[in-house]
C-alpha cells in the first residue's frame, strides 16, 4: 500500500524550544501508528503538528506526498483530527453538529449517516441536546463521531480513550481498526496499552530521544515495565 504520511526529522515545540527529540516516521494506507510516552513528553504536540494545528520548528511532514498546509482545501479533505478541544457551538444540538460536518464534507445521505453515528456512539437519545447539557464523556463521543463520520486519508487521534467507558473504548478501537482496514492511515496517541496492542501496526516512543518499537514493547513502555 502507498505511503500516506511521511515525517522527516520533525522538530516540534513552543517559542522555538523543542519539547522532544526529532521524529521521523511513515504510515502507509491501512497502518496504525501508535504514539506513546510519559506525560509532557510531547506526544500531543507531535500529533498537533502533524495535523497542521501548529507549525513545526524544523523538518517536513507530507500527506500523500504534499507538504502539510492546514489552510489548503485538499489537506483539510484528507486529514481528520480529534483532539481534546471542548469547543462547541453553544446553541447547536448534537445532531446539528454532526450534520454540519456531514454536509461540509458533501456526504451522501447526511441525515442517515448522522443517525448511524449517533446510534454507534450511544447519542441517539441525546441527539437534540446542546453540548452543555452533555456529560464530559458524551462530549468526547461527539468529538469522536465528528472525526469518524467524515472520509479521510489519515485520521489523527489524541488519546481517544479519554473519558470513555470501557465498552465504548472497545467499540472505538474497533472503529479505528475498521478505518484502517478500509485503507485509511491512523496516527493514535494513547496511554491505553490494550488499545495499542489491539490496533497499532508500529509504535513511536516519544521522549528526548524518539524510538520506533513494535506495539508489544510500546505497550510495556506505557505500563512502565
Amino acid at each position, binding site marked *: 500500500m502507498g505511503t500516506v504520511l511521511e515525517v522527516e526529522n520533525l522538530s516540534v515545540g513552543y*517559542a522555538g524550544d523543542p519539547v522532544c527529540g526529532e521524529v521521523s516516521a511513515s504510515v502507509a494506507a491501512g497502518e496504525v501508528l501508535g504514539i506513546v510516552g510519559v506525560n509532557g513528553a510531547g506526544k500531543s504536540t507531535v500529533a498537533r503538528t502533524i495535523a497542521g494545528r*501548529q*507549525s513545526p520548528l524544523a523538518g517536513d511532514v507530507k500527506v500523500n506526498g504534499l507538504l502539510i498546509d*492546514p*489552510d489548503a*482545501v*485538499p489537506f*483539510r*479533505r484528507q486529514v*481528520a*483530527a480529534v483532539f481534546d*478541544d471542548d*469547543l*462547541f*457551538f*453553544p*446553541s*447547536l*444540538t448534537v445532531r*446539528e*453538529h454532526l*450534520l*454540519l*460536518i456531514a*454536509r*461540509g*464534507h*458533501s456526504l451522501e445521505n447526511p441525515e442517515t449517516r448522522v443517525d448511524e453515528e449517533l446510534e454507534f456512539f450511544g447519542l441517539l437519545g441525546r441527539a437534540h441536546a*446542546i453540548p452543555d447539557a452533555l456529560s464530559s464523556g458524551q462530549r468526547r463521543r461527539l468529538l469522536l463521531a*465528528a472525526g469518524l463520520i467524515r472520509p479521510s486519508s489519515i485520521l489523527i487521534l489524541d488519546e481517544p480513550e479519554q473519558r470513555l467507558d470501557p465498552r465504548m473504548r472497545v467499540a472505538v478501537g474497533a472503529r479505528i481498526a475498521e478505518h484502517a482496514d478500509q485503507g485509511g492511515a491512523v496516527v493514535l496517541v494513547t496511554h491505553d496499552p490494550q488499545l495499542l496492542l489491539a490496533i497499532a501496526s508500529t509504535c513511536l516512543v516519544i521522549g528526548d530521544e524518539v524510538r520506533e518499537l513494535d506495539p508489544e514493547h510500546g505497550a510495556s513502555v506505557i505500563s512502565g515495565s
Partner: protein
Amino acid sequence: MSTDVSRQGRILSAEIVRFTRRSARRYRRSRSSLGDRFVDAYSWGLGIGVSLTIAASFVLALRNEIAGRASTSGSIVREQWLVLPEPVLWTCLTFVVLLAVGNLAGKLGPLAVNGPESSWWLPLPLDRRPMVLPPFLRKTALAAAGSVIAYVAFSMVTAADRNPLEHLCSALTFGAAAVIAVVMAAFKQLGLLGRWTGRIVSAALLAACSAATLISASPWPAALAAVVAVGLAAVVGPRAGRVAGEELVRGGAVAGHAGASLFMMDSNEVLRALGAGRKKVDGGRAARFYTRPPRGPLGALIRADVVAFLRLNPPLVPPVMWFAGSVALLLVEGGLPGFVQLAVLVIAGCATASGMATVSRKTAMLPEIDALLPLHPALVRISRMLMPCLAMAAWMGLLSVVLVSLGASTPALIAVGAMAGIGMGAGSIRAAIRTQPDWSAPPVETPFGPVPRAQLGSLLRGLDVTILAMIPLMVALYLGYVPSLVAGAQLVFSAGIVLVVALSRPKHS
C-alpha cells in the same frame, strides 16, 4: 473546472454558515418568549437613549464652556514657549485616535473566527470566505457607525463655528478613515503588504484623512475617503478566505476574551486579553542580570520581577503617546479650561499606570506560586511594585519637568510628581491583583436595575488609589506653586498607598 469547484465550495460553505446561524437562531427563539424579546429591545433602547442623552448634554456643556472661555484664562500653563494652533492639535489627536483604531483592529483581527467556529468550520474542506467575510463586513460597518457618532460629538466641541451639515461631513470623513484603519489591519492579516510598507501606507492614508477631516467640512473629502475605503475593502473581500487559520483563531481568541471581559465589566481582563496575541516574550533580555547570585529569597524575587518586567516588553508607545498628548493639550492656542487640562493629566496618568502592571496581572492568575515562596506576602507585593513604581515615577517626573518649564508650578513640582508616580505604580498593582465580584451573591437593587454586589468596588479597585495619588499634584498645579503642606500630603498619600497595597490581602474566588 477548478473555478467551478471553488464556486461549489463557496456555495457549500455559505450553506454551512447559514445552517449554523439558522439553528442557533431557532434555538434562541425557542428559549425566549415574545415578551422577553420585547423587554430586551426596550432595555436596549432605553439604555442607548439614556447614554446618548447624557453624552449629548456633556458635549453641549463642554462646547459652551470652551466657546465662552477667555483666552488663556484658567489655564494651568503660564508660559507657552510653543503655541500649537488648534487645528494642528485636533488633527494630531484625530490621527492618534485613528492609529489606535487600527492597532485595536489588528489585535482583535477584523478577519477572525470564534472558538466553536475554529473547531467546526475551519477543518472543513471548503472555501473559508463565506465564513469570515460577513463578520468582517459587520465589524467594518460597526466601526464606521461608531466613529461617525463619536466624531459628531468631537466636532461639536472642537469646531463650534460649523453648521450641522458640516459636522456630519467631517464625521463621515472620519468614519471612512476608521474603515480604512480596519481594512488596513485586514491587509496585514492577509500579508498583502510588507510589515513596514503596510505601516507606512496605513499611516499615510490615516494622516491624510485626519487632515481632510479637520481642514474641510465639505462633502468631497468624505466622498474621497469613502471611495478609498471601499476600494481597499474590495481588495480584501475576494481574498478574505486566504487568511491563515492560525491568524483567524488568534484574532477570534483575543476578540472573544476582550468581548467577554467587557461584558463582565472587568477592565483587568480586557487588558489581559489585549496584552495577549502575537507579542513575543523576549526570553534572553536581562539574562546576565538574572544569573548573578542574589542575596536571600527577597533578592531573588526582586531580580525575577525586574527581569519579568523587562521581558514582558512593557509597551513604550502608549506612555509616549499619552505624554505627548497631554503636553500638546497644554500648548494649544487659546488654552483649554484649567479643569479640562487637569482632567486630561489624570486620564493620561491612569491610562499609563494601567499598562505597567503586566507582571502582576499575569502572576495574579496563579497566586499559588507566590504562596510557595518563603516570604511574607507583603514583601512579595513590594517586589512586584518595584518596577511599576520606578517607571511611573520616571514618567510623572518627566511630565513635571515639562510642566515646570511651562510655568505651571515651581521646581518642587518635579519631586511631587515623582512621588505621585510611586503611588500610581502601587495603584496599578492594586488594580492588577483585584478579584472579580462574586456573581453568585444576590445583586443590589439600584435605580438603574439590579447590579452585581461589589461590581463597582471591583471596577474602581486600583483606579481609586491611582487617582488619590494624583490629588496633591493636581492641587499644586491648580495653585501654581507647591506649598509644603501639599508636598507633605503627597509624601503621606504615596507612602500610604504603597503600604495599603503591600498589606492588602485580596480574597481569591
